[in-house]
């Protein structure tokens, strides 16, 4: 009974016709899903995992064409009539989405949206019964006071509650198959942990077959029974959780695992997969991963590898598994970690570059209300130090950054930059130029921090243009070339507009612009949060590298604790506008004092504990 097959996907391909050409989002994907199991699909953004989900659900946009078969028992879902598919959607299949806010209809109450899902499939159900069922579902997903909550709108719910509501909608008709498309990506770590536990609980209680799409290996490790790794529209490796995490065979899987910060603990740099994922518009000949693969074989550039069988449950698409190929072994991080010495902490002894005393910042809300974003925060950062500021969304960490950069000046408390009292208007005026040159900021979203209508060459040299400075490298153009090459952007990109670059490249441009003036202090507000794992690692390395070269201080704001642990010398933890704990990174991570820090650390899913994938 356990092995009852629910869904069988056979040679499924999905293509989108767009103005720029045909996007091959899913290419010849086959797998099966059994009752009661969780299959995780992992991959970077744009690898086709969302399209795969939508294809199975039958909710692809109009410009998509599909090929192959999606078999539910003995019916091919791709060929059944739309009416029949509709009957299956929501009753046999359900789906939850990445962004619960936009997924919920803003003008309908949560209760009525759940009720709708019920009586669309059970139109004869009595009104009272539907109501009871709605309350039951809300309770099931852990929403308290279901009777009052059912009458509220999405905007009255927090992010986690919204995702719970979407889950309630998905569970309305006890589906046999649940598709979860990055359900926790938009949520904070602690909320993510709650939702994952809930999902796993319900999945086991209802014995649902679940397809869990995610880019986060750590999350996948927590929920999955089996894992499929996708790259450029294909499944490149599929196997049980243990097989994938303990004995991965595809170089891409190796790369993904090695990019995890805990893998590089004690190392100088994070491991990265070089390059970028290919565009699904024009795929190169052979294996699309070859250009990023240190172990690429000659044949990889000619022919795409087929699936090789490792075990009955484990397959991987790499020529390395061919009998003639050289044997390349992959070592699990356990060996790495034990080999590495104790974490070396670069104790910075320099003078204080920034000192914050009792910083408090309030916002006026509509009406007479006030909202305290930052309350009584004090800390200092030394020269050449990387200071991490961690906290969940709404904890006030970005507001601190903006106060430090004089974006907000109506705060109370003191901020000293290199002994300049920047809370004082006169001092700000007096040292204006110096402050503008020596302090630079990098934002989370490189799309909005770079003017879309200016060329890269202009953007990089903007500080020189604004300050009318003569660049060190002679002309503005030479300076731009130099700065860009420094962060790993080639000359050809100079004449491009930001939207023609990838997210990682754009962030590099933003960094180049920030370091162009030889700053002493760099404030980076969630600089990697919007990027893919492998690109995140590249950017973190870049930060580390630049810091070493220039010796400036960095205030690194993030919610990803693993990144902070790797990069930062000291850490401050923020919650609801207060700084609850400050200390050396090693100290805080090994020995958290504050209850919230402990909670935060506990919520981070871990893959490798003492050498082996940790058990569920």
């Amino acid at each position, binding site marked *: 009974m356990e092995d009852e097959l629910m869904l069988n996907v056979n040679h499924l391909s999905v293509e989108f016709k767009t103005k720029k050409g045909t996007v091959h989002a899913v290419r010849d994907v086959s797998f099966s899903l059994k009752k009661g199991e969780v299959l995780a699909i992992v991959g970077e953004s744009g690898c086709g995992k969302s399209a795969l989900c*939508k294809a199975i*659900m039958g*909710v692809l946009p109009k410009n998509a064409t599909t090929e192959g078969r999606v078999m539910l028992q003995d019916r091919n879902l791709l060929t059944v009539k739309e*009416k029949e598919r*509709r*009957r*299956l*959607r*929501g*009753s046999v*299949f*359900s*789906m939850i*989405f990445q*962004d619960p806010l*936009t*997924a*919920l*209809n*803003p*003008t*309908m109450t949560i209760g009525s949206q759940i009720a*709708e*899902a019920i009586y*669309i*499939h059970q139109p004869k159900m009595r009104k009272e019964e539907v109501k009871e069922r709605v309350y039951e579902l809300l309770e099931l997903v852990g929403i308290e006071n279901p009777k009052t909550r059912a009458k509220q*709108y*999405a*905007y009255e719910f927090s992010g986690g509650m919204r995702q719970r509501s*979407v889950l309630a*909608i*998905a569970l*309305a008709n006890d589906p046999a198959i649940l598709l979860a498309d990055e359900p926790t990506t938009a949520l904070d770590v602690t909320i993510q942990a709650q939702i994952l536990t809930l999902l796993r609980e319900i999945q086991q209680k209802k014995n649902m077959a679940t397809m869990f799409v995610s880019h986060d290996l750590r999350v996948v490790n927590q929920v999955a029974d089996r894992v499929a790794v996708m790259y450029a529209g294909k499944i490149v490796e599929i196997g049980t959780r243990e097989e994938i995490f303990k004995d991965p065979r595809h170089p891409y899987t190796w790369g993904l695992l090695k990019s995890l910060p805990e893998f590089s603990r004690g190392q100088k740099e994070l491991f990265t997969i070089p390059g970028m994922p290919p565009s699904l518009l024009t795929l190169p000949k052979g294996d699309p991963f070859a250009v990023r693969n240190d172990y690429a074989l000659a044949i990889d550039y000619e022919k795409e590898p087929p699936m090789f069988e490792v075990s009955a449950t484990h397959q991987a698409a790499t020529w390395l598994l061919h009998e003639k190929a050289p044997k390349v072994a992959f070592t699990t991080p356990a060996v790495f970690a034990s080999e590495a010495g104790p974490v070396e902490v670069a104790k910075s002894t320099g003078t204080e570059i920034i000192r914050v005393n009792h910083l408090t910042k309030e*916002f*006026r*809300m*509509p009406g007479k209300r006030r*909202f305290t*974003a930052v309350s009584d925060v004090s800390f200092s950062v030394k020269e050449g130090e990387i200071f991490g500021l961690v906290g969940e969304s*709404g904890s006030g960490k*970005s*507001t601190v950054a903006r106060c430090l950069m004089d974006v907000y000046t109506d705060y109370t408390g003191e901020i000293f930059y290199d002994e300049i009292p920047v809370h004082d208007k006169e001092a700000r005026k007096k040292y204006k130029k110096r402050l503008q040159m020596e302090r630079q900021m990098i934002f989370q979203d490189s799309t909005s921090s770079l003017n879309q209508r200016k060329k890269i060459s202009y953007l990089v040299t903007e500080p020189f243009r604004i300050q009318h400075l003569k660049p060190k490298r002679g002309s503005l153009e030479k300076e731009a070339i130099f700065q860009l090459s420094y962060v790993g952007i080639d000359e050809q990109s100079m004449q491009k507009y930001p939207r023609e670059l990838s997210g990682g490249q754009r962030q590099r441009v933003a960094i180049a612009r920030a370091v162009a003036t030889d700053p002493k202090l760099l404030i980076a507000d969630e600089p990697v949060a919007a990027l893919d794992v492998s690109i995140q690692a590249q950017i973190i390395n870049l930060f580390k590298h630049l810091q070493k070269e220039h010796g400036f201080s960095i205030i690194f704001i993030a919610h990803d604790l693993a990144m902070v642990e790797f990069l930062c010398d000291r850490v401050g933890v923020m919650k609801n506008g207060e700084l609850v704990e400050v200390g050396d990174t090693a100290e805080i991570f090994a020995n958290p004092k504050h209850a919230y820090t402990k909670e935060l650390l506990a919520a981070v899913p871990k893959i490798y504990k003492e050498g082996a994938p940790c058990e569920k």
Partner: protein
Amino acid sequence: MRKIIGRILVFFVSVLLLSFLVFAISRLAPGDPLLSYYGDRVEKMTPAERAWAEKKLGLDEPILTQYGNWMQNAAKGNFGISYKYKQDVIEVVLERLPYTLVLGGIGFVLTFGLALLIGMVCALHEERWIDRIICKVGTVTSCIPEFWISLMLILIFSVELQVLPSSGAHSLTEDSFIDRVWHLVLPMTVVVLGHLWYYAYMIRNKILEEIRADYVLLAKAKGLSRRQILYRHCLRNLLPSYFSLMAISIPHILGGTYIVETVFSFPGIGKLAYESARFKDYNLLMVLCILSGITVILGNMIAQAINERIDPRIRAEEVFHDER
């Protein structure tokens, strides 16, 4: 409650300001108001006669005093007489108002009813032939000036085919319901055609925007059909913007009838306003401007209220106003 009082206050201040502005502009602009009272006789008047006439009409005092007097009388409900019609302005306006209300009101309902229908048909068949044809035809109609389409309709239906009357609200010899409806056909066509595509296109695009929202995907995943999603979710979410669009457009359509009224010699207040402005019939002008001003301001306020009250999305924005 405080909000409502605030709104009412804003309304009155706006109307007051408006009345003063209109008063000032109309009196400061060159032109002879006596012309509309005395007609051609003005030219033969001696300066003494003129002075006497101006005093009689209260036009000899400084503008501020004139405005004060006007305000005092207006507060008592006395808005003065029309120079041209030598009648209480309220009477003059009330006599004409029903015509405009019928023309503009029915035109308004027809326009918005049809606009929603066309917008829906287009959105449902986005980029298919029916949508393309409607869009092309619509664009063409939106490019035709109202007065010219009026002329063409008269040329075709009244001059050439001689099936529909070209002017007036009813025949001189006959005044029955059917006759009145008959006279309304052409002006009404122009009123509706003049605005239809503008709103239909707007509604079409709004629906398309809604269709692309994420919640449609969830609704689809629930198992709802296209039709159900459109009616239960998209249209529902469209309604606030639809109603507020209607509210903003009341003055637009009602007040925009003057061209049609002029071409078809239709005795509505649009034509009256045109005449009063051209010939400095001050008292009449003031009443008409304030009337139209009130509809504009009220329309805007209703639209704003609809947006804030009915649409939870805007409330949501308020809640997350300054939090980043």
